[in-house]
């Protein structure tokens, strides 16, 4: 049995929707039924065309009035549901705004949430989601005991985005009954060169083994030379060496690059769950017993302070 209707929270990434949004609508489409999206950005007509190509039939636009998205988008969704427009499931990306809307909506609808999933299926009309826990070593499948709509969020890169549809989504302005009180007064874009962390084909991450915050520049240098993105273990984010946005792991970003280079990272389960889906893994660590070596395609048991500068010099010299 398939589902009749699925909603997806569509998020902006600059002038288009996020890759995560396209991943979700692709998966939603495969579950049968109608796929509709909610969007609170300023490019509704372009997004309606883009999502139409991914099989989305309606795009509900939400005017957030300059506030954070949690309250207005949840209010718009709840308003539609109260009016009798009821989806079987609502899918969110595990992102800053996705989590906000999901949390607010769960209270408005008094529904449980299942988050951080990597897959969804429908079995006898029942929605089931899979979550990888314990560093990805264990797969847990869960279902809801209450009524639809079921509220679910997914890790980035859980699905592959593929177009499939040739219409433009119909744009409908959804009314917002509760305005958000948390107002955005200024936005700051931090210039960073190269690809973004969760979309990069190559990621170089550093951990506590670097020994000192200053040494993180080696990670940035190597990432730049290889046209990759720099990442970090939780330990050095907690220590304040790099911002939270650099963190790869269970609490942080999930990355699935072609090549992941872990330098001075021992491989706590917290970290492994965020990167073990990488196609290939290179690990450099001085402790031969470090768990990271159990999943590395190439492991160098050595001192990052020696290996990284040698590697950087060798690549520069090419």
């Amino acid at each position: 049995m398939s589902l009749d209707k699925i909603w997806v929270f569509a998020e902006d990434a600059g002038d288009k929707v996020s890759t995560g949004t396209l991943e979700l609508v692709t998966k939603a489409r495969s579950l049968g039924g109608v796929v509709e999206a909610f969007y609170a950005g300023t490019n509704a007509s372009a997004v309606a065309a883009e999502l139409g190509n991914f099989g989305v039939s309606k795009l509900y636009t939400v005017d957030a009035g300059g506030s954070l998205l949690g309250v207005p988008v949840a209010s718009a969704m709840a308003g539609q549901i109260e009016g009798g427009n009821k989806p079987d499931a609502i899918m969110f990306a595990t992102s800053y705004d996705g989590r906000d809307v999901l949390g607010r909506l769960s209270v408005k609808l008094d529904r449980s949430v299942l988050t951080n999933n990597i897959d969804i299926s429908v079995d006898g009309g029942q929605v089931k989601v899979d979550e990888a826990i314990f560093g990805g070593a264990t797969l847990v499948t869960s279902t809801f005991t209450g009524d639809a709509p079921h509220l679910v969020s997914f890790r980035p890169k859980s699905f592959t985005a593929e177009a499939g549809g040739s219409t433009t989504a119909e744009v409908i302005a959804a009314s917002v009954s509760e305005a958000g009180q948390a107002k955005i007064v200024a936005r700051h874009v931090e210039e960073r060169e190269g690809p973004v962390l969760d979309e990069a084909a190559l990621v170089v991450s550093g951990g506590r083994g670097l020994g000192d915050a200053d040494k993180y520049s080696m990670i940035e240098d190597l990432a730049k030379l290889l046209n990759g993105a720099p990442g970090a273990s939780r330990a050095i984010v907690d220590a304040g060496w790099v911002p939270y946005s650099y963190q790869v792991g269970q609490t942080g970003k999930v990355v699935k690059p072609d090549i992941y280079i872990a330098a001075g990272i021992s491989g706590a389960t917290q970290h492994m769950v965020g990167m073990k889906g990488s196609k290939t893994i290179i690990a450099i660590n001085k402790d031969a017993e470090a768990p990271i070596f159990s999943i590395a395609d190439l492991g160098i048991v050595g001192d990052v302070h020696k290996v990284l500068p040698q590697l950087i010099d060798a690549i520069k010299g090419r």
Partner: protein
Amino acid sequence: MGRGSCSDLVLWRICGHDYAMNVVVCVKQIPDPAIPGQLDPQTNFLKREGKLILDDSDAYGVEMALQLVDAAGGGEVTLVSMAPNNEASGLRTALAMGAAKAVLVSDPALAGADALTTAKVLAGAIDRVKPDLVLTATEATDGYTGTLPEQIAGLLNFPSITFAKKIEISGTTVKVDRQTEAGYDEVEAPMPAVVSVTAGVVEPRYPSFKGIMAAKSKPVDELTAADLGITPGTGQQIVSVIAAEARQAGEIIEDDGEGYLKIIEFLEQQKVL
């Protein structure tokens, strides 16, 4: 709550009154994350036996709250926590850092509670404290559902600002630098509000010996779900638990001074170089 001018209407409470900035910090006591986690084969709930410790993620909220109270020149930090048993060792750590008191909702019926039920319990306890500000982590280290701050705010009907890198109080407004994918946003909301704090943005203080001694006698009020009028429940169920496909280790070599050449070779094979 900085010392403002008495002509500033929003600061009327400071002038002529002893202004107290009261902050609740939601904290969780978790099994030591260094020890591999296990699910109870009977219930599929995460095993929470043995000693529980303060979730590292929460130490940033506690530190931030202590600094905000300090800057306001008065008030106190109250911890609010939930546990299926009356374990309080993790709370003592935060009390030793300087929190004044704790409210622990402890009830065996709350074992396996989902995030929404947890939020109802914490919101119920917070409502009794009537704080100016509620701080949380962005997610707990053990369960990491990641929706709790927004759910608590929704239940209390407070505004919320998530993923704070920096918090400032100005009159009755909380001003936050909020992490975004592209950088950060400056966001403002009227208080009382819920703010979730990202890890690493402040350096949590180490409890002093005096702090540790004082923490032993600080009040920890215990409540049950029934005291808050909440019927424990969960809207979800685990239907299967299986081992994921294991990844195999590849070639592991000892660096002899030329280990980097192996990496170069590997990157060449992958056509990165």
